[in-house]
């Protein structure tokens, strides 16, 4: 049955997990974490990385128990077809919501930066069509997209050297002035950015060398943590407190001070360019959710892709206001937090208990 699965090398897992983590979140994360943990926001980011590192370990443990299964199949295995399907439906809804949140976040950004007056559905449609095209190509195409997207966008890190010229170190002092509670709230706020590592649950069957997977997935999440850490620290040093609390996309506002002799407003390059950063996210989420539909309803994946795209397209007529979007992102972030930061532990326990019961009987 699985003979038609196309395998990829383990090192590609690095690109897949990393690119699915980095997306719209990183543009706004310094602000959200700063609102909670003030100048100690960077500690929250590091803690969040540590936390995810542990979760990756747990996820690998779960996956190792069920060889060559993705999360949907594990659910059916563990809870039976009926309850498993209910949980899977919930997951699919989460992924569709996450997909929509990325799309609308990007469309909103690009409308603010240059396309004011355009209807949201135009942008959503354009993004969806490209994504459908990529996902129709199958998993190998998506893995390639992640790889290319990484190579084509990682140079943007070096653009930060210009804002570095007007930073002020006193802004991060005094260190550790936030209470542990504030720092933990900050960790909670990083989730919208850090989410994406859950793709590991679903790409697992496609990886050739399963033993190397742990190493590459750890590498990916630590690299993401490093990038988010750098952006957070530079944002704290670059903006004064009130400013950072005001900007919706502090990173874009920071990039707006970048200029070259041949290019005065770099952010107008960076914002359209960001499409390459979010593209792997879109592909992966569409792929995963359509895979879920296939599992639950035995729908052809192609039809699943179209169905989800139509749902998202229709939603783009209703949820478009800044305040609504913000609420939507928050909800997706919250659900994502419980689903991927807490739930893996629960799942691990259940699987242990169940295997113990079975081995006894």
């Amino acid at each position, binding site marked *: 049955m699985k003979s038609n699965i196309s395998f990829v090398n383990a090192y590609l897992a690095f690109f897949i997990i990393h690119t699915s983590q980095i997306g719209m979140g990183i543009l706004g994360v310094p602000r959200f974490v700063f609102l909670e943990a003030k100048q100690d926001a960077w500690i929250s980011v590091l803690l969040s990385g540590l936390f995810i590192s542990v979760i990756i370990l747990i996820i690998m443990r779960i996956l190792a128990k069920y060889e060559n299964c993705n999360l949907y199949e594990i659910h059916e295995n563990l809870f039976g077809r009926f309850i498993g399907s209910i949980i899977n439906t919930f997951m699919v809804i989460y992924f569709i919501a996450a997909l929509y949140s990325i799309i609308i976040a990007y469309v909103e950004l690009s409308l603010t*930066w240059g396309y004011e007056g355009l209807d949201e559905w135009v942008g959503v449609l354009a993004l969806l069509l490209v994504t*459908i*095209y990529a996902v129709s190509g199958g998993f190998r195409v998506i893995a390639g997209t992640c790889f290319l997207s990484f190579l084509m966008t990682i140079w943007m890190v070096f653009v930060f050297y210009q804002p570095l010229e007007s930073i002020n170190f*006193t802004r991060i*002092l005094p260190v550790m002035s936030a209470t542990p509670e504030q720092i933990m709230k900050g960790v909670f706020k990083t989730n919208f950015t850090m989410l994406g590592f859950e793709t590991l649950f679903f790409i697992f069957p496609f990886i050739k060398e399963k033993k190397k997977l742990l190493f590459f997935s750890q590498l990916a999440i630590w690299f993401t943590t490093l990038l988010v850490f750098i952006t957070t620290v530079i944002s704290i040093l670059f903006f*004064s*407190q009130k400013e950072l609390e005001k900007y919706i996309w502090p990173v874009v*506002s920071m990039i707006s001070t970048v200029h070259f002799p041949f290019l005065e*407003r770099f952010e107008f390059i960076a914002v359209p360019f960001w499409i390459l950063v979010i593209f792997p996210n879109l592909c992966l989420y569409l792929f995963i959710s359509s895979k879920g539909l296939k599992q639950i309803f035995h729908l052809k994946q192609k039809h699943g892709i179209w169905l989800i795209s139509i749902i998202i397209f229709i939603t783009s007529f209703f949820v478009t206001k800044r305040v609504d979007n913000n609420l939507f992102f928050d909800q997706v972030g919250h659900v994502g937090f419980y689903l991927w930061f807490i739930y893996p532990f629960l799942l691990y326990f259940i699987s242990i208990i169940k295997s113990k019961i079975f081995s006894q009987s």
Partner: protein
Amino acid sequence: MKKWLILFCCLICTACVPPEKILERQGISTIIGYDLLDKDTYKGSISLLQFDRKEEKTSETISAVGSTSKQIRQRLEQQTSHDITSGQLRTILFDKDISEKIGISSFLDSMQRDSSIGSLIFLAITNNSEEVINNNNYEEYPEMGSYIYQLLDKQARKEMLINSNLHDFFSTLYEIGIDPTLPIISNKKGAAPYIEKVALLKDDKMVGSISLTKTLFIKLFSNRKASLGDITLNIPIEVLEQKGIPLVEKPKGDNFNITIHPIKHHGKVKLFNEEDFYLNATITVSTIEVQPAIPLNNRKSIKKLEQLLGEELNKELGDFLEELRKLKTDPIGIGRKIKSIRKYSNLSDKDLREKYSTLKLKSTIKVEIKRTGAVD
């Protein structure tokens, strides 16, 4: 199916979307100035770049009256057939009345909100911004906006201005414990506008002004990379003699004049204990002009000269700090430094200002003469 999809993608991905921007139809504003007319009514003037080759004039200035900056802009649109765009906006001018009585931050909200305006535009204060924009003497530049931008940019890059672009202004305005500064542009009939002074602000209101050379002391402690600009000191000959520095030639006047060019500087501010605040700085310089000549080839006299220059600068710094405190403004960021200490990190803006006014400020400036030019 796939072919149709690709075709459709091609159509939608060509970015043929509104708002289209055709160069000839754009009225590109490069400078905008606001003047206070009455309470709550302002006059805004802009200079537009012309792209029509048939026209001989390269720019056009128009003004309108309104109560918010976007209302002014709406009324400006009525007066021109071009679309006014602010993507090339380089400078915003405010007249003295706005900056002294009303404060400029209310105007800047719109600048921050508008994503077409970059963070690198300059802010400046003038006596009457409409007159500055209408001035026709702008050297070889096509219009006033470009001229003033070049003027401010050049000064900020290599001489004695503190960076005053929108980003720097905001980040100092919003930060607790530091106040912004802005250049003052002066306008005389028949001459190009020039930078006259630097305005000191308290929050967003102008409270005083200092000469360009005094900005040295602000940059010394707040920005390690800034260019300090050359420093000229006039020291009475007697002081020189008291110090025991021999003159080589006979002095022509009463003063010993020396101009030094700072190569590197390193300023440190530190709260020593509850009351004492230390400002220490080291400047490495090369001498670029000395009249009358003194021997600069032996260690002893160099050392004495270094000491003398340090003392003179320190005296000036002391006076400068007192002046700042009298105006209750803190452009150096002493308050910010205090706030970065754990004990004081919860102080509010008001508490910090109070603390600032009661602190004992102690300063030392050390001058190191590294080079003496081609001669010694």
